[in-house]
Structures are given as C-alpha cells and as structure tokens.
C-alpha cells in the first residue's frame, strides 16, 4: 500500500508540474498570438478566454454570411436607442454637415473626417444579419466604407493591436482587435437598405461588425483611437460592456 501511495504521489506530482508548465507555456503562446481578451480576469475569465482564443483561431479571416436582397427584413427594425444628447441634436439640426469622425492614437496622420469625405471613398455594401444578444435578429443592407480603408488613410502603425471606437454619448465605447478592424466586412456604415442610415439604427455613422453580436456595432460613432494596449481606456477591460457585466468579445 505504501509503495502504491508513493508511486501515486510521484505520478500526481509529475502530472501537476507538467500541467502547470503546460498552462504557463499555453498562456505565453496565447499572449504572443493575441488570444487573451482584455476581460480575462475574474470568475468568468476562463470561459471568455477559451471562447475568444478558439474563435480567433477559427475565424481570423472567415466572412460573415451574406444574404440575397429579397431576404432583407421588412420593415427594418430600429432597436431602442439611448436618449439623444444635446450635442447630437445640434448636429442633427444641421443635417449632420458638421459631424466629424476623429482618428488618433498609433497613426502616422491623425485626422478628422466629415461624412462627405467618408462618402467620397469607394463605398461598399453588405447584406448581413444583425443578431442581438437577447435573441432577436434582422437582415439589412449596410452601406459604408470599410474601416480598413480609413485606417490606411491615417496610416495605422504596425504595432497597433486594437481600435477603440466611441459614440457621441461618452457612455458608449468599445474596441476590437486588428483581425476585426482590418476585416473586409467591418464598416463605418452611413447607409442602410439603399438610403441614409436612420438615426434609429445608429445614423449618421455606425460601426458595423457582422461577425459579432449587435452590441459591438456601436451607434453614432465620432472617434477612433488606434492603440497597442487597452489599459488606459476606462477600467482597462476593453469596452463599456465588461464594466456592465457583458463580454468584450461577442462572437457568440
């Protein structure tokens, strides 16, 4: 019996050491390849990390499903929007002529863009689904400029790892990694279903991210910051969502 328990003790010890070393190595590799989400701490950190890491490995270049024009939801759904700020109402009264998108951070040429300037770039459209974390969904045609194009114009630096984006209401801000920021379907959308993007759907400018749930597609976008670390933003969890208990990565 004592021989058995000694052997068992040694085996357990070896297994535990191997496990700890393996976990350490895995963490190191995950960090190098950017597989650890900013909200990896706390009780749910394990699940968030496993989800983000595995989806990142699986979906770095995959394209969201696109639909036929006859599949567009009619009438289009406008979800609840937060109360519009005074700043928004002033810009709205002026037909959004003074709306600006400010881009700063790790870029060679910080700039601000009017809607007219954004619309002067080659426009793209996609018919994709917007799925809410609550369970409902709709399909719409989204028209805009790929975020990657704007990042190219401002000259995002190679060490950039995230793009932080903010709504005109400072309560709403979020961020995405470069795999999503440079993804061909990630748009700064200014049009919907062949028309201007309605205010109810986030007009005049909304970040559209079809591979993640609706709450990552922040409405009324006015500022982008390119960065290599999310530590200095809010509580350092990557967006306002984790501060309210929601996951930073919303691919599921």
């Amino acid at each position, binding site marked *: 019996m004592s021989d058995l328990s000694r052997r068992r003790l040694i085996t357990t010890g070896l297994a535990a050491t191997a496990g700890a070393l393996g976990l350490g190595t895995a963490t190191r590799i995950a960090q190098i390849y950017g597989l650890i989400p900013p909200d990896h701490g706390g009780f749910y950190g*394990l699940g968030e990390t496993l989800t983000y890491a595995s989806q990142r490995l699986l979906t770095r270049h995959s394209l969201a499903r696109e639909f036929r024009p006859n599949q567009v*939801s009619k009438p289009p*759904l406008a979800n609840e929007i937060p109360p519009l700020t005074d700043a928004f109402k002033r810009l709205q009264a002026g037909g959004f002529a003074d709306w600006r998108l400010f881009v700063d951070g790790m870029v060679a040429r910080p700039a601000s863009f009017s809607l007219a300037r954004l619309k002067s770039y080659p426009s793209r459209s996609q018919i994709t*689904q917007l*799925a809410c974390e*609550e369970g409902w969904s709709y399909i719409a045609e989204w028209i805009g400029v790929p975020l990657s194009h704007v990042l190219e114009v401002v000259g995002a630096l190679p060490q950039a790892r995230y793009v932080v984006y903010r709504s005109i209401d400072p309560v709403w801000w979020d961020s995405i990694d470069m795999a999503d920021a440079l993804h061909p379907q990630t748009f700064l959308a200014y049009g919907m279903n062949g028309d201007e993007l309605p205010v109810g759907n986030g007009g005049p400018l909304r970040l559209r991210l079809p591979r993640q749930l609706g709450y990552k597609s922040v409405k009324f976008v006015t500022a982008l910051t390119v960065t290599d670390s999310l530590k200095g933003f809010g509580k350092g969890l990557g967006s306002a969502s984790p501060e309210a208990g*929601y996951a930073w990565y919303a691919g599921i």
Partner: protein
Amino acid sequence: MARPESVRVPLGASVPNFARSVRATTVTSRHSALVRVTHWITTLCFLALLVSGIEIVISHPRFYWGETGNVLTTPLFKLPIPSSRTLVPTGYGYVLPDQNGWSRSLHFQAAWVVVLTGLLYAISSLLTGHLRKNLLPGKADLSWRALSIAIAKHLRFERPSEVEAWSYNGLQRLTYLFVIFVLFPLVIWTGLAMSPAFVSAVPATVTLLGGQQSARTIHFFVSLALLFFLLVHVVMVCLAGFRSRMRAMITGHASPDYASTDGEGT
C-alpha cells in the same frame, strides 16, 4: 486505485446470485470514478446552463423559424412570461431587471466545462468499454417485448428488480445513449449555430438548420427535452432508493442490499 476488497460485478443473469452470495461481507463497486466525477460536473454545469438559459430567454421570450425574427415579425410562439426588455410586448405592466451579462458569461463558461467533460467521458467510455458493457443494449433488451415490459414497469412506478439495479435495462440504455449521443450534440450544435463568428467559419452549422432563429428554437426544445430527462431521472432515483443511489454515484460503493434498499440505506 482499486480497493482490494471491492469486487467487480459481472453483468448478466448471474449478477443477482453473485450479489446475494457476497451480501453479508462486502460492499461492491457500482460506478467507476470517471463516471462519478463526470456525472457530477455535468450536473453542476447543466444546472448553471439551465438557470442562465432561462435568464437569457426572459430578455426575449419569443421564438421564430427561419433566419430572422424580432418584435416586428410574427413569432412561432411566445412564452407567457414577463420580459427583461421594454422592447418586448408581453402584456405585463412591468419589466424585469436585466440579468443577461452574467447569464451569458456563466452559460458559455458552463458550456465549455461540460463539453470538455463530455469529450473526456465519451472517449474514455469507448476506451474502457463502459459504453459497450453498460450502455449499448443487447439484442434481447431491444425486443418489443422487453421494451414494452420496461415501459410498463416505469409507468407503474415499479421498483427495479435486482438485475436492473446492477445493470441498466434496455429502456435505460436507450435513454442514456439518446441523451449522450443525440441531445447533447444537438444542443451544442444549435448553440454554435447562433454564434455569428462560428457560423462565419462553418456556415453549414446554421444553414442546415434553416437559419439562426430556427437554431434558437431547436436549442430551446432540446433544452426542454434535457430538462425532462433530468426530472424523470431524479424521480427514478428517488423511487429506486434515493440514499443508496446517491451514495453509489458519490462513493462508487453499493451496499449488498442495493437492489432492495428502501431508500434508507443500510
């Protein structure tokens, strides 16, 4: 590690005789450590998934078929419960607090743990023969006569016979196989089919089901089926002898009078 005094119970008709012969002197092993550990991890995860799943449904207690569905489209059916969102017309004059943040995190965390546990269980039950010996029904178990007798016994809430206490009957085997190899894979599949990122990599996950909302509706019904299994399972455990069954699934030991225990233990 095997305890020297424990005895492996052979299967088949010889079991009750064998069990009777060792009755006075020994305790007998009923469930392997792997079965016990994976059983209780799965139990915990299922309860977490159930509670968090209910919370998530409360934010939109409407179900649809096809690709899309929202408050502007006609639902397949609605649950007659209040909602945690003002957007949803429920007929109730109040809105419940939003619990989706932690519910979603708990749901996916528990899903990860139960999927990994399930893989461990499935692979090791193939390797150890647990699947072949304890779960795959024999030819005799599958006859209509044997199955109808088993169903009739269940419907009469009859106590299991001594053979059945030591080895699962055909109906039990089919049920466990159905839960492990049909319901669990289906609930995982339909869950993944709701992920916009996952389906971007593997679109067939959702197109085969007829759309994202169909996946959500099937996910709901498979969860109901799993809940139904859980309830029947617990009722059966109580009927067969709650304390002896719990002890067998916790310690692995079964007392010699396992089959005839009245639920008060020995």
